[in-house]
């Protein structure tokens, strides 16, 4: 791996044809080990690539040695008789801490999404009303939505039992990139999309087989 600067200047072509080939094989092995989740044996790889086993083994060893260097945060190890890529254990803490800090996209279960959708379009709305529309019992997801500050209580409704009503919050607008609630697409607009879709689909790619008898 010493002549790499030269190789960089003229990729794929090195003075020594051999080392170019080696680099090529090593590159393929790197990609293969990367994409497979289960450890691959040298035999499997050799068979799939149609290459002699000892050549593959040598290249894999070189790959293992390369990734063992400290400037690599990944390692390729022999596990269960095969080769597998993973992050190095010494960086696990750093990676874990990093992943934790990532703000994940707004993710909701289907039940929560349904409830949120009903509240968004019907607010202010009570729990029985939500369950009625969804046709499902159990309002457990309300807590999830309240916890995530996507919905809030909006006073009580003046009917028997004075049930609490719910509305969406400012955080809801932020999460969905809305200036205000009037920006919510209306059902009519949504149905428009669906209707136009049918028009498009009704126009098949090939000529229709069975046209209505045109000129009788």
């Amino acid at each position, binding site marked *: 791996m010493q002549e790499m600067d030269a190789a960089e200047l003229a990729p794929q072509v090195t003075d020594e044809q051999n080392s170019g080939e080696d680099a090529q094989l090593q590159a393929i092995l790197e990609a293969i080990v990367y994409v497979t989740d289960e450890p691959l044996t040298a035999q499997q790889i050799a068979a799939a690539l149609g290459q002699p086993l000892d050549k593959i083994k040598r290249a894999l060893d070189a790959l293992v040695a390369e990734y063992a260097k400290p400037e690599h945060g990944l390692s390729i190890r022999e596990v269960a008789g095969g080769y597998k890529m993973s992050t190095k254990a010494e960086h696990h803490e750093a990676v874990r801490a990093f*992943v934790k800090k990532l703000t994940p996209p707004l993710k*909701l279960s*289907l039940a929560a999404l*349904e409830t949120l959708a009903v509240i968004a379009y019907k607010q202010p709305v009570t729990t029985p009303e939500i369950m009625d529309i*969804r*046709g499902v019992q159990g309002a457990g997801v309300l807590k999830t939505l309240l916890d995530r500050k996507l919905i809030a209580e909006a006073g009580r409704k003046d009917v028997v039992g004075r049930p609490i009503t719910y509305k969406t919050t400012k955080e809801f607008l932020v999460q969905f990139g809305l200036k205000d609630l009037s920006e919510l697409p209306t059902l009519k607009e949504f149905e428009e999309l669906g209707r136009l879709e049918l028009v498009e689909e009704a126009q098949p790619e090939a000529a229709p087989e069975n046209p*209505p008898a045109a000129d009788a």
Partner: protein
Amino acid sequence: MSSPLNFHLEQYDGPLDLLLDLIRKQQINIYDIPIARITQQYLDYMQKAAQMDIELSAEFVYMAATLIHIKSRMLLPRDPELDKISPEEDPRTELVNRLLEYERFRNAAEMLQQKRVVEEAVWSNPQIAQFRAEDDDPGLAVTLFDLVKTFQNVLERAKHRPVYEIDTEEVSVPDMIRYLRNVFQNESAAVSARDLFERQRSRRAMICLFLALLELVKLQALGLTQKDLFGEIGLKRLKGFEAVFAGGETMAAIEQGYN
């Protein structure tokens, strides 16, 4: 008259697509379109499509009218004196501009397609799952579009759900049994009995619901659960649930009994 020749006739996305193809294939100068010839070819295409029962959208017809209009404008002689004062714009200009505009986007679409070819030849294998906390909700990433789509789905489902008017006086025990069947069909977890009763809007409905519950508990379709003494009473689907509703007999018998 489904003709085997059908697929020899190219399909076009729209009139601009067709015009662009005519112009390109014949290497016509876009700034000097022989409008009579192109109009004729365009109409020929429409005619053939009609013969083959290929339905062309209204835009094709509209464009045909536009072409004929341009053609007639080009045939009419202009007063040379008037032209000196206010030279008339070439009647083809607007069409040419639309074609050029459309062509840019069609080529841009091809560029996007090529980019996809490259992206489909590479693979990623992120390992983030190993580093995510286990309590992370795997949920769905949600967009505004999902929100309206979901609401539409919910309403759609409600529309197809048999509706039992529970706030009218007519509600009956069999109605309530059907209602409960509906509730528990997709719900394997326990449901609060209080919630169920609170949803009823009339005394009669509550009584019918109560009788319906007794009936289903007796038939071992539903079971009662209570976590602790004086705790909330829950209702849960039992193994017998499917069997009770499987045939029509049970329901028929109940209907009989209450009518």
